[in-house]
């Protein structure tokens, strides 16, 4: 029988880190990819928050004398055809991407939660109607819906967020509804009923908090895809309009004209988008593993 090093085995299992920072450090090691994802996400959040501090240039200020400058000490990531500093634009673009990502995910999720909760909790005809509505939303292709919405509302940041949020509703509400249905059968809900608690209070106090974990997992997963959807909308000409520096538009418009002559205009926004999406996905994956006990390997 092979000699077993108990200590190292235990360390690998995380037994030495049950609380506080050490636990976090262990989880960080255990879910290395997730940590990288979290790190990327935090970096983006930090960059977005500190955008004004870490850029030396106004992302909107045009400078015809320094147009299409290659990356240099002056302009770290070069300048675009307007002579605007690409680094500043990407940094400020993080705000837009985060606004789109978080805004639409939050909006879509909260409506989805409401619909899912009501539908799962009330059942009956309310459920039937809500479910049909979700069916309908689900059978309408996401991008088409977003296209019609932005066309209808005009291309502005809030409208794009709204347009991207609406297609998120059916997925979220389905998950929440399924969860609610399962939770409703749980005895602690019945116990709450038996003490004479009102249905609304039960829904809010007992059911909702317990759908949080799947919701967070779902939301992180969707965060990335909303950023991508915005990029696709930009590509089709319906994304966040100028003057906001949206990564999607930076990428899709520069790609046409400057991919060879000024590749930095394409490479950096591309990296920013992919990295942000990659980061949220990595983190979401790990989060799912951590929050969903069934997924634990």
């Amino acid at each position, binding site marked *: 029988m092979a000699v077993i090093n108990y200590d190292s085995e235990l360390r690998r299992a995380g037994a030495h880190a049950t609380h506080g920072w050490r636990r976090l450090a262990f989880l960080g090691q255990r879910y290395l990819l997730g940590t990288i994802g979290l790190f990327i996400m935090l970096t983006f959040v930090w960059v977005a928050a500190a955008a004004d501090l870490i850029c030396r240039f106004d992302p909107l200020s045009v400078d015809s004398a320094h147009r299409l400058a290659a990356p240099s000490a002056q302009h770290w990531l070069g300048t675009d055809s307007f002579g605007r500093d690409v680094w500043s634009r990407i940094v400020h673009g993080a705000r837009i991407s985060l606004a789109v990502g978080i805004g639409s995910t939050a909006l879509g999720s909260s409506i989805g939660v409401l619909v899912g909760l009501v539908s799962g909790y009330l059942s009956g005809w309310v459920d039937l109607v809500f479910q049909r509505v979700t069916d309908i939303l689900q059978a309408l292709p996401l991008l088409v819906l977003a296209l019609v919405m932005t066309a209808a509302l005009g291309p502005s940041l809030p409208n794009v967020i709204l347009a991207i949020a609406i297609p998120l509703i059916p997925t979220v509400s389905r998950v929440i509804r399924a969860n609610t249905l399962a939770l409703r059968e*749980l*005895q*602690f809900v*019945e*116990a*709450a*009923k*038996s*003490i*004479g*608690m*009102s249905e609304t*209070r039960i829904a809010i106090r*007992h059911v909702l*908090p*317990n759908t949080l974990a799947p919701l967070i997992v779902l939301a992180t997963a969707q965060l990335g895809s909303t950023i991508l959807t915005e990029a696709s909308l930009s590509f089709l000409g319906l994304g966040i309009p100028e003057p906001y520096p949206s990564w999607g538009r930076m990428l899709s418009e520069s790609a046409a004209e400057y991919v060879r002559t000024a590749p930095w205009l394409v490479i950096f926004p591309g990296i920013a988008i992919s990295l942000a999406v990659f980061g949220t996905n990595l983190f979401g994956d790990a989060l799912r593993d951590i929050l969903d006990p069934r997924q634990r390997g």
Partner: protein
Amino acid sequence: MTDARPLLEVTDLVKHYAVRGGILRRRVGTVHAVDGVSFSVGVGETLGMVGESGCGKSTVARSVLRLVEPTSGSIRLNGVDVTHLGKADMRPHRRSMQIVFQDPFASLNPRMTAGDIVGEPLSVHGLASGRQKQERVAELFQQVGLRPDQMNNYPHQFSGGQRQRICIARALSLGPSLIVCDEPVSALDVSIQAQVINLLIDLQRKHGFSYLFIAHDLAVVAHISHRVAVMYLGRIVEVAEKSELFANPRHPYTQALLSSVPVADPKMKRLKPLIDGDVPSPINPPSGCAFHTRCRYVMDRCKVERPVLAEAGTRHQVACFLNAGTGREAEIALSTSSRP
């Protein structure tokens, strides 16, 4: 004490569940979960209820508390018919009856502290708040043998037996007179089970609660109950004083049930199941006496006619044609003691 006026009277309780299928969720069948059950529980009395899985025990319990709406029948609590009370009218009555569930893991909200869980009924009914509530909760904790300093812990930080104590404390918080226990010890370890049973007994002694005590473990039921009702497929087939029932089981199903219990005595190896076959589905319960498909004494009559629960001795009711007075007594040898 069982002669006292009944606290709970259940008459002809019926609960049918629709079996729904497909997306339109149309009714495709009916589960006869409870199919005409009558019983009463006196003040300070414990009525045990046994029966195989799916025979409708939990449904009875939940109907009594109006957690499900009975299809028909009536439930009277302290002489008040609560069967059709609206939500608001029901609220004061909820304080008089509480339930403890089988699974202490599932019956506590994992995201609330033990103190909040126990205190919640108080705030829902506006009985106490703030400090007063804290004190009351601490008191309840002590009553069920938990340390008040555990109030801020979450359910997962408790062991199974402790969780069941939290459930009991929650049930006690409103000062009920009836506690419905739906298999409160089935999920517990053998050595913990005794602690919870003792707690229930102690509480009854102290406060004079009535219990409707549901279990599938005959030994537990036998221990705690004054009277025992045996259910089979949605109906009570036999009900009697405990000693009477165990000494003199009349219904063939009760007999089979008793004989199936493995006796903890190696000298009495008698593992000869008196019945075979499975419990029929409550969606299509057999005609006549529901037990006739598995009964050793089945007669033609049993297949078409349903025997009613009839008096068959002192405070002993049986629903079986064999016991309708003249019929042949079902013979069975039962051990009288199992203790080595």
